[in-house]
């Protein structure tokens, strides 16, 4: 038989035994290394349980702590025993006790027999791979690592920082270029024996024993010295998450693993009974013969890592609550805020719905209630229109609204009358498109039937609020798409800005210009109204310059011919 299996075992010995029997039944000789931390009583029982199998050896035991030299030492002594005791072995396959052969062993044997001089070992220079843990790539070869990363993280980090400060650098033994890759390899006798009997081995071992995570670099580096033909990939399907921890396979991964077409997978949850039952069978349940291709599984696991590291933008929930600036999107989708438009145009909301197909709400932050579209009291996500609930946490209200209506553009009205606590949240949000006609809040006052003294004080209050809001919108922290016109400016040529805003939202159907124009409110006497305010000592300035008598704006909508832009 031409393939020998080196198996590193530390827990779940029962499963290791099952897998060992599977390899052995196919005629593969095995050398098993058991971690020193396994109690000797358990170890003896384990040895005894495999006593009936031919060609099974147990190698010298080392302590195999993650990221330490012990794993390499264990592989070395097991490989030496393999090469010495089984002269017919041509390829040595390094596996663990929690590895599971996915395809009939005979297929692996045939595959390797057809490639007698190929070493399968993932091996890349540090500059070229993104998988590094703890921000250490090239440095893992140039610094000292006497402290355990898992157990003494503080000392580990301090010592790395100290070495960086002192610019300490280890000497890399002559002639080798550090490479790294998956620790699960399959090497030919030629390559492996050359590594193990290298006259320089003592110095390499000394060097690598102080490198960080040497099991990912020792064989990966030295194989480059001797191999005739390296195929830089692992025959073992092994996925790592962002902490360098292997992903675990469960029963529900069965179909996924069937499709993977890799020879061996790790690591398997010991209680995954269905997986063990499905794959540890004889050749009768053979799967189709194809080149190993782990790419199909890649997607699912890289997605999991992305979910953990980047999360879903705009989602605030029990296990995602980012601190400021780390939100990766304050909200989940684009939305539009209109200030002053519904005051200036009589049917603005209905018109905007028609022109864009978006969902157009009234004043969501109005003092009385959240004015959802079509007068709803509850909308998507069972979000209530209660003003108290909304004002209790305005940011959560907005984030919920946008999250709940994903896939549908949201627009809403805003005015200085509304709750202003949300202003900064919207201004800082790149998803927000804010359009302001400043001073338009005077329109409802102008049209109202209130006492002039009340109007005057209300106008003063609203002007103050809006002017503060405008400062926010013009600040350097603002990331929203902001457009501001004074009212006077806007009514001179209202269609052009409207067209721009609508184009940016993206209308429901491609249009050439706006076919319909929103109806502007009657401005007759508005100039005089402003003058009256001035005469009372309150200077309205946010709406720009309105002459006292103004022919131009007499019944503006009927006088002006509705025209199409462009």
């Amino acid at each position, binding site marked *: 038989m031409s393939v020998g299996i080196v198996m590193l075992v530390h827990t779940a010995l029962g499963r290791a035994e099952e897998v060992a029997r599977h390899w052995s039944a196919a005629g593969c000789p095995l050398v098993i290394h058991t971690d020193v931390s396994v109690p000797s009583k358990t170890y003896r029982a384990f040895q005894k349980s495999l006593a009936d199998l031919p060609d099974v050896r147990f190698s010298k035991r080392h302590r195999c702590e993650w990221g330490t030299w012990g794993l390499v030492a264990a592989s070395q002594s097991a490989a030496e025993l393999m090469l010495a005791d089984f002269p017919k072995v041509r390829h040595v396959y390094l596996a663990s006790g929690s590895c599971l052969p996915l395809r009939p062993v005979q297929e692996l044997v045939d595959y390797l027999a057809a490639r007698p001089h190929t070493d399968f070992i993932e091996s890349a220079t540090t500059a070229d791979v993104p998988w590094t843990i703890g921000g250490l790539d090239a440095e893992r070869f140039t610094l000292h690592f006497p402290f355990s990363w898992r157990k003494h993280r503080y000392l580990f980090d301090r010592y790395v920082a100290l070495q960086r400060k002192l610019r300490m650098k280890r000497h890399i033994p002559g002639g080798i270029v550090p490479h790294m890759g998956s620790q699960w390899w399959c090497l030919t006798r030629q390559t492996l024996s050359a590594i193990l009997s290298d006259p320089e081995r003592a110095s390499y071992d000394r060097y690598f024993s102080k490198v960080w995570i040497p099991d990912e670099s020792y064989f990966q580096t030295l194989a480059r010295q001797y191999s005739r033909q390296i195929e830089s990939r692992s025959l073992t399907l092994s996925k790592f998450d962002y902490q360098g921890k292997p992903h675990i396979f469960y029963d529900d991964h069965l179909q996924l693993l069937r499709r993977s077409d890799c020879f061996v997978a790790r690591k398997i949850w010991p209680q995954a009974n269905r997986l063990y039952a499905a794959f540890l069978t004889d050749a009768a349940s053979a799967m189709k013969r194809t080149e190993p291709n782990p790419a199909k599984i890649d997607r699912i696991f890289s997605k999991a890592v992305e979910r953990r590291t980047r999360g879903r933008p705009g989602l605030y929930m029990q296990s995602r609550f980012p601190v400021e600036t780390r939100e990766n999107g304050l909200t989940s989708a684009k939305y539009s805020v209109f200030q002053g438009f519904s005051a200036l145009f009589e049917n603005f909301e209905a018109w905007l719905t028609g022109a864009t197909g978006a969902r157009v709400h009234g004043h969501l932050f109005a003092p009385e209630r959240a004015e959802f579209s079509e007068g709803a009291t*509850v909308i998507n996500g069972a979000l209530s229109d209660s003003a108290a609930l909304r004002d209790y946490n305005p940011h959560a209200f907005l984030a919920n609204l946008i999250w709940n209506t994903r896939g549908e553009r949201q627009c809403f009205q805003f005015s200085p009358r509304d709750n202003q606590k949300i202003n900064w949240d919207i201004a800082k949000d790149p998803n927000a498109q804010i359009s302001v006609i400043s001073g338009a809040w005077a329109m409802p006052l102008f049209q109202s039937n209130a006492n002039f003294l009340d109007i005057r004080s209300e106008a003063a209050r609203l002007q103050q609020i809006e002017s503060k809001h405008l400062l926010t919108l013009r600040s350097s922290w603002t990331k929203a798409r902001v457009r501001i016109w004074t009212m006077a400016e806007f009514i001179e040529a209202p269609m052009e800005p409207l067209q721009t805003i609508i184009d940016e939202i993206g209308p429901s159907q491609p249009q050439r210009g706006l076919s319909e124009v929103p109806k502007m409110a009657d401005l007759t006497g508005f100039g005089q109204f402003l003058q009256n305010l001035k005469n009372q000592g309150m200077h309205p300035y946010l709406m720009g310059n309105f002459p006292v008598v103004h022919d131009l704006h007499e019944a503006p909508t009927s006088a002006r011919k509705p025209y199409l832009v462009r």
Partner: protein
Amino acid sequence: MSIVQSYRMRLRRKHAKARSLRKGLSLRPIADRTSQIAPGDILLFSTLRNEHVRLPYFLDYYRNMGVDHFLIVDNDSTDGSGDYLIEQPDVSLWHTAASYKRSRFGVDWLNRLQSKYGHDHWTLVVDPDELFIYPFCDTRPIGALTDWLDGSNVRSFGAMLLDMYPKGRLDAVPYRRGQDPIEIASWFDPGNYLIKKNRQFGNLWIQGGPRARVFFPDEPEKAPALNKIPLVKWNRRYAYISSTHMLLPRGLNLVYDEWGGETASGVLLHAKFLDTFTQKAKEEMDRKQHYRASLEYKAYLENMAERPELWCKWSEKYINWRQLEILGLMSKGNWA
């Protein structure tokens, strides 16, 4: 955090431990099967009063999930809950007639039992009306989750309380013994939760859902807390401080990510709003043994008369954990 603050937290934790020792004195063992507990077993702790009708489904649900042993405090039930539990082979039962309120709503009792029996075990603390849901719970037993958490060096796992309710009147469909309560109370609010961070303890404070929407629309600050951390790799130094909402040491409360990512989390389906509820609310109003002088129950009763329905047009019907994941109520994190 300053040394003073951290010392204050330590005192607080010590105080909770001392309190649990004192309050634990009232616990009388009725059926002590704790000798069955093996190393690595997953233990469930619960306090209950008059929950007989829910118990058969509750126990089976968690047995199927892979819980190995139940440690239950019976707060003087009169409906036969105690007799039923004595006969269960995997239940250890304690009895107390002491005040629920003055044991800080059962926390002291369970802290006592947990430090005695839960050390070095994964412990799940849930009420009889709470059903724990975690990612892949339909295909993987809870041991898969705890093994994975162990492997990731994570000691605690958050699961938000999700209030479930029926469509129509709460008392329209009677609950039968052994029935899955989610068959009746199968609806929930999918997207109206409000989150703040509790700076003192480091946990998130979540409110919202149907109770905020219907019972407290004008006083949202009074709406009940929904954040929970029910699953913890227990150590005898640990203590729950307020229900299962938060623990000490504070590090256990960090079940969420602050740098934009998502950690794995689950949900506790809260099947409180069944036909049994109105009865319970009246009873508890008389006993006044619940949080904030049963303020919640009071609000329920007041609202119940005029509007006995929690369901609205935008309520979502429960399907499975994947649905909750997509809605953003829970997350797989990096578990795949």
